[in-house]
């Protein structure tokens, strides 16, 4: 049976509403007043974009959300979406000293959302680009978080920036690939509009390497930023993989973002293959769109899954089920449609996941979502820049300070450079690349914004997370030593 939408509009909208309501002004004040206004605050060190978090919180406490948003967006142009999609538990909030004092960190993400929502809702532009451009042009490939981070920073530095993307709208995964209940796509689209108002030009429906070639780019632009992200889901390599109800989890999430919620087809019994954060997004949204059963199928154990602990809890609360140490061996069909999965138990042998002989069984599913990791864009990159050096894992080789690649004029950032990390890492790398491009074209360096006194202190402060981010798991590991 082909899959169909399962819910009426009202129920679908209710189930997919943002998981946390926006703070009311007084809630924001109370929360903001919990911040200790640390000197060289650990939260800043844990923020890859180096937002001066205590300052923006202080501005909320002092009832100036516009200035607060200015602090946020100056450091991170996608501050509104990062406020929703950042894994704050392992970034700023995980490093918050109030966590140690009170057992509960300052809710930095929700405060950031409060301030950024305020300026978007009141249509206040806190970022400005110089009216007089510097006459230099930069092409940005990909309108995802890395491309936007780079484009906005360059525009603010006076560059003429053109962003190319194959989709119909900008924002990349923020617009098409985030769980709806974490962030409705309009937030991301509003961010793109804000960047347009900085003077950045966007060209959509452009396929890189086909509609536009490296020669065109090199001729028309002084520098090129590559922020292509990742490609489609990895192949499973099992029979039945090409049946119509075997779908990339990210494509399924894109349906949710491009159709009315009550028109998104979903299976009654959904299998999600993989157990990363995209798998969680897929399984929870399947449940919320009316699936009777939504199961994670993961070849390793509970302790191995890449998904964050809080994501796992969220999925369990949504009623998702988990099959650990389980692998699909075949997608079974009936009348050309997915009917079931043949599954097998796995075990570790010499560190490798192996099927337990004779453990196979069949379980009925009508939709199979693949969240087993995404392919690198090696093909596109090779076609566009045949001489661009990639590492063994298919990532573009680059200087981590300037984001320069092996090719002159070509800079990189985001998933195609880091292999797939958070939105906030992509924005930070885009911004870093913008500064790298600026240094390359003008020989001038841009620093900040972080409190200048936080640098060069006797004994050496770590500085902001933009220069040298820390992550809480790394922090905990260091403490355990």
């Amino acid at each position, binding site marked *: 049976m082909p899959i169909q939408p399962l819910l009426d509009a009202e129920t679908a909208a209710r189930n997919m509403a943002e998981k946390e309501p926006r703070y009311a002004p007084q809630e924001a004040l109370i929360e903001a007043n919990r911040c200790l206004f*640390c000197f060289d605050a650990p939260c800043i*060190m844990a923020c890859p974009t180096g937002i001066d978090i205590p300052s923006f919180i202080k501005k909320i406490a002092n009832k100036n959300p516009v200035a607060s948003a200015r602090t946020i967006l100056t450091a991170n142009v996608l501050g509104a979406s990062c406020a929703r999609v950042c894994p704050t538990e392992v970034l700023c909030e995980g490093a918050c000293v109030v966590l140690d*004092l009170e057992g509960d960190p300052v809710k930095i993400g929700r405060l950031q959302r409060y301030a950024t929502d305020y300026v978007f809702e009141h249509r206040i532009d806190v970022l400005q680009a110089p009216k007089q451009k510097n006459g230099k042009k930069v092409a940005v490939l990909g309108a995802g978080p890395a491309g936007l981070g780079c484009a906005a920073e360059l525009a603010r530095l006076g560059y003429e920036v053109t962003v190319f993307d194959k989709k119909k709208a900008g924002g990349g995964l923020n617009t098409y690939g985030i769980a709806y209940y974490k962030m409705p796509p309009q937030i991301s689209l509003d961010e793109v509009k804000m960047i347009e108002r900085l003077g950045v030009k966007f060209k959509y429906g452009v396929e890189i390497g086909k509609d536009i070639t490296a020669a065109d780019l090199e001729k028309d632009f002084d520098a090129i930023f590559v922020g292509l992200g990742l490609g489609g889901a990895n192949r499973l390599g099992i029979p039945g993989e090409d049946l119509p109800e075997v779908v990339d989890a990210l494509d399924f999430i894109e349906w949710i973002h491009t159709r009315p919620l009550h028109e998104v087809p979903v299976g009654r019994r959904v299998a999600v293959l993989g157990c990363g954060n995209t798998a969680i997004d897929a399984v929870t949204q399947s449940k919320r769109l009316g699936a009777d059963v939504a199961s994670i199928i993961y070849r390793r154990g509970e302790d191995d899954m890449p998904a964050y602990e809080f994501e796992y809890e969220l999925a369990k609360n949504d009623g998702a089920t988990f099959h650990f140490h389980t692998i699909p061996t075949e997608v079974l069909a009936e009348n050309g449609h997915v009917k079931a999965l043949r599954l097998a138990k796995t075990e570790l042998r010499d560190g490798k996941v192996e099927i337990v002989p004779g453990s196979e069984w069949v379980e009925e599913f009508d939709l199979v979502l693949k969240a087993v990791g995404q392919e690198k864009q090696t093909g596109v990159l090779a076609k566009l820049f045949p001489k661009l050096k990639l590492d063994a894992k298919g990532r573009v080789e680059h200087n981590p300070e300037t984001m320069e690649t092996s090719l002159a004029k070509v800079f990189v950032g985001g998933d195609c450079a880091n292999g797939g990390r958070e939105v906030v890492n992509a924005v930070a790398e885009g911004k870093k690349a913008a500064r790298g491009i600026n240094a390359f074209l003008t020989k001038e360096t841009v620093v900040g914004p972080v409190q200048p006194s936080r640098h060069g202190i006797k004994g050496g402060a770590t500085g902001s997370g933009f220069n040298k981010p820390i992550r809480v798991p790394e922090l905990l590991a260091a403490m355990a030593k």
Partner: protein
Amino acid sequence: MADLSIDFAGIKSPNPFWIASGPPSNTAYQSHRAFEAGWGGVVWKTIGDPIVNVASRYSALNLGGQRMIGFNNIELISDRSPETNFREIKEVKDRWPNHAVIASLMVDTRERWHEFVKRSADCGADGIELNFGCPHGMCERGMGSAVGQNPDVAETIVGWVMEAAEIPVIVKLTPNITNVVYAARAAKRAGADAISLINTINSITNVNLDTLTPEPYVRGLSSHGGYCGPAVKPIALNMVQSCAADPEVGLPISGIGGIGNWRDAAEFIALGSLSLQVCTAVMHYGFRIVEDMNEGLSDYLDAKGYKSVAEFSGAAVKHLSDWKYLDLHYKRVARIDYDKCIGCNLCYIACEDGAHQCIDLVDPAPYGLGPGRVPGKPVPKVREEDCVGCNLCSLVCPVDDCITMAEIETGREKMSWDDYQTRMARGEMQPIPAHP
């Protein structure tokens, strides 16, 4: 169990907690409720010739989400007639014979003072409090703080009152004066039985940044209000102690100013108060707060071995002296407990920018990491040889007992500024070198 009852200049009260003259002591109804809740006395809202009030009347200072850390008002004395007030005082005394009811008075002429003093005694009031402190409205008419700010005038008027007084007279002092002790001495010279302090402080709590009109707002204008509440406690304690320590004053003191709980009360008593008056805290939370005050004070006196409030009163007065008697050779330094340190580094920046630059940020490696410390993030380290022992870092530290001030034995005998000047004059020592 310690005895909480007091005999305040002849006014007997089952406990030292009185409702201060103000909105909570406006009516018999409120007094009944106060006594039912456990208050020992009520100082009636000031009685005088009829006045007219405005709307609005109160405003507040909030801080960090905490409401009413400071409070002000432009409300005048009772807007009820003297007849009504005296009748209701009698009604309250009839029902609560063992509780203290004190009539607060404010009139102008000698004849009116005589009349109101007599009427207070006639209605059964246990005492009289002279309102020489109200800093708004009434002072423009030559009363309230206009009296209290001029010791000679205050002395004259207390003299008038004493001519007619048959019950104890308390003079309520204004803090809006250069040195409150002069006013207290004037009250003593004129024969007053006790003093109470502080009345409210001249204030503007805030300006509305849209209308540019301060609060409380009265059709486009505001007026200077009387400031009180938790934020005024340090000012009140200072003035109470100054009067308690002055050898010429020697009067029982009713302490007023920001008292909201038993700890505040104990501090006021320790610095020389015998009774305590509370208004703002009741305006915030109601009469019920007295339950914890009575219980807490009783427990505290028991724990410290005091048998009565009177025995405890003034116990801390001797621990204040003029600066010139402080020991210049005493040394204390800040010590950081790295097991408790959460890494906010507020101590560092406070010392660096705000005090004496005696804390360094250093490599954390040799120090134990406290909870959640970011690896590699520098830790604050006090340079004890340079630390002036100012306390600032320990005050800004958000973690209890993380930064403590440790006494350092210098081996040098006590030397005050006074001693220092004497020894220099005798040629026994050279000047101490100035700080670099």
